[in-house]
């Protein structure tokens, strides 16, 4: 009973947040609503007892991805007014297409028996959520996990190939040279005549 109440509360909040993400005028508000949606979704995971996924969602999506979105939205300064300029003009056509698609989907769903949906493998008993996920990722599917790592490596190499440029004349710090300087190289003692001063490179070497 109380579980159902919490489910409907969280689910309702998630849907509301989702609607607000796409309807908020200010993109920063959209991202904040997105964070709200993630937190509610994490709550939904808790309700079904998937505490590890709930924590992961909060840490990865709220903590990292959404904050990154926020930075991107703030830095890019996208003018949403111009992006939305044509929206009203295309709205009738879009609505018409959407309506046609929904009618088609309804017809298909009502008249069509797709076939039996097979149950997936049952979860292992006697393991906590975290252990079960770990076994799946690092033992059963370690091959795919490693291959996914190689895909990320490719993405990294690709990003560097396509964007990195060697610029000439860039002043770089060289820690090795900095650390291996000796006083003899850097200090020059001079005995200028009275009133003459030192003028080699403005006194800086």
């Amino acid at each position, binding site marked *: 009973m109380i579980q159902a109440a919490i489910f409907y509360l969280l689910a309702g909040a998630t849907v509301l947040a989702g609607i607000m993400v796409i309807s908020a005028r200010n993109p920063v508000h959209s991202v904040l609503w997105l964070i709200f949606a993630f937190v509610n979704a994490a709550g939904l995971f808790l309700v079904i007892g998937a505490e590890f996924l709930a924590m992961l969602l909060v840490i990865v999506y709220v903590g990292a991805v959404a904050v990154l979105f926020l930075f991107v939205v703030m830095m890019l300064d996208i003018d949403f007014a111009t992006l939305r300029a044509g929206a009203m003009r295309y709205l009738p056509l879009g609505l018409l297409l959407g309506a046609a698609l929904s009618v088609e989907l309804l017809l298909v769903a009502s008249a*069509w*028996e*797709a*076939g*039996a*949906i*097979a*149950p*997936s*493998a049952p979860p292992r008993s006697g393991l906590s959520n975290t252990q079960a996920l770990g076994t799946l990722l690092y*033992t*059963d*599917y*370690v*091959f*795919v996990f*490693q*291959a*996914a790592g*190689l*895909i990320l*490596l*490719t*993405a990294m*190499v*690709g990003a*560097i*190939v*396509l964007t990195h440029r060697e610029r000439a004349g860039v002043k770089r710090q060289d820690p090795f040279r900095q650390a291996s300087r000796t006083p003899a190289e850097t200090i020059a003692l001079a005995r200028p005549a009275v009133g003459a001063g030192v003028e080699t490179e403005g006194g800086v070497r």
Partner: protein
Amino acid sequence: MTLLQSLSVGAPEVVLAAGICVLLLVGAFRGDRALEGLSWASVLLLALAAVPLFDQAPGRLAAWNGLYVADAFSRHLKLLVFLGSAAAILVAVPYLRRLATARFEYPLLVLLATLGMAIMVSAQNLLSLYVGLELMSLSAYVLAAFHRDESRSSEAGLKYFALGALASGLMLYGASLVYGFAGSTSFADIAKAFVAGEVRNLGALFGLVFLLAALAFKVSAVPFHMWTPDVYEGAPTPVVAFFATAPKVAAMGLMLRLLYEAFGGMKADWQQIVLVMSIASMLLGSVAAIAQTSMKRLLAYSAIANIGFALIGLAAGTAAGVEAVLLYLLVYLVMTLGAFVALLMLVDADGRQLEDLADLAGLARTRPGIASALAIFMFSLAGIPPMFGFMPKLAVFSAAVEAGLWPLAVLGVLASVVAAYYYLRVVKIMFIDPPAGVVVLPGEQGVNPAVVGAAAAFSSPLGYLLLGPLAAWGAEAARALA
């Protein structure tokens, strides 16, 4: 199955992955001047990764908890893919040097794509299928845009990426449908869930259609071919030589394995889809190539038509058909690679790469060697009898006739006749038209003349000498599958 056993069964991939990491480090420290050394090291690495292919016990070896299999089929295709990749790495070196884009990442990206292809042809699960395909595709997107300062190349990369991402989405959607209706992503379990003769499972059929659509995109079969001419035209020529060969072979191999091992029970369903794609690809590839003025676009349409011919063997749905597809892929790989490398060697006095058909005019008088090699490739691609290119065409047509699909074979012959027109037009332009301009050979050529010569010898009637062992090899691979 211990980890050690898995590592030894999957040795080609393990060696490749470890080698790539080492070479990447070498490149990061040595910089772009390491390009040539890294290229040769990459070829050595591919050879090293190919050693276990000869060394493994015959038969079917499963590994990695059923995600991976090493059998005669995967070994056959891996060898072809490694060969194509090694050639693509070596022929690019002089080209990249000339255009001052000699960045050390080129051989590494090809190697990463090769690793993806090796995973693809050994996939036994929708998950390993997807990661293999994605590893290959992601490297391919970067390679297409490798000349990032040239707008055509960036455009090709962006187009390929946007459409490829769409295809990946289709594939994942199809895979999730199949998973939902089969309850598992493993090929063996899917085959158990969808057995022939029972009530047709429409949900699984939808999943199959989406999977096939994504794979058709990768092999550029009509109606998912739109990206091919644009990407081939814009991407650097050695990269196109790579795209047109190894990834096509791997994706066709993956399609064969998926359809036979996972959806063998739904053969009647997928046969129709493959049939339509085959006919459409042959016809469109043959007709649309006639109007092309760029050699790269012409070869792109030629690739589309050739995939149509190869799909005939798949549509036949018999063991002989699979064998014919494997022979087709092998000969197609060599012919297409040769044609692109020959094109790569044509440079005018300003150092501009010659890519237009008009530039080839009178080539037989200025560069008789390249012109005759190109002529051999054109005759062979057209499938004109004394050339070796005739043999795989004959094999797929006879497989179709044996399977009772003679209308398909007739359409195939008709498409070949139409296609022969534009292949022969290239020969006519090279041998009969007056010379158009000065064609110089770039100073440094690397291994390119040797590659062209070997490919031309293989595509010429001399190739028949190898037919016996090649056919036996392909038959062994086909038996492992069907």
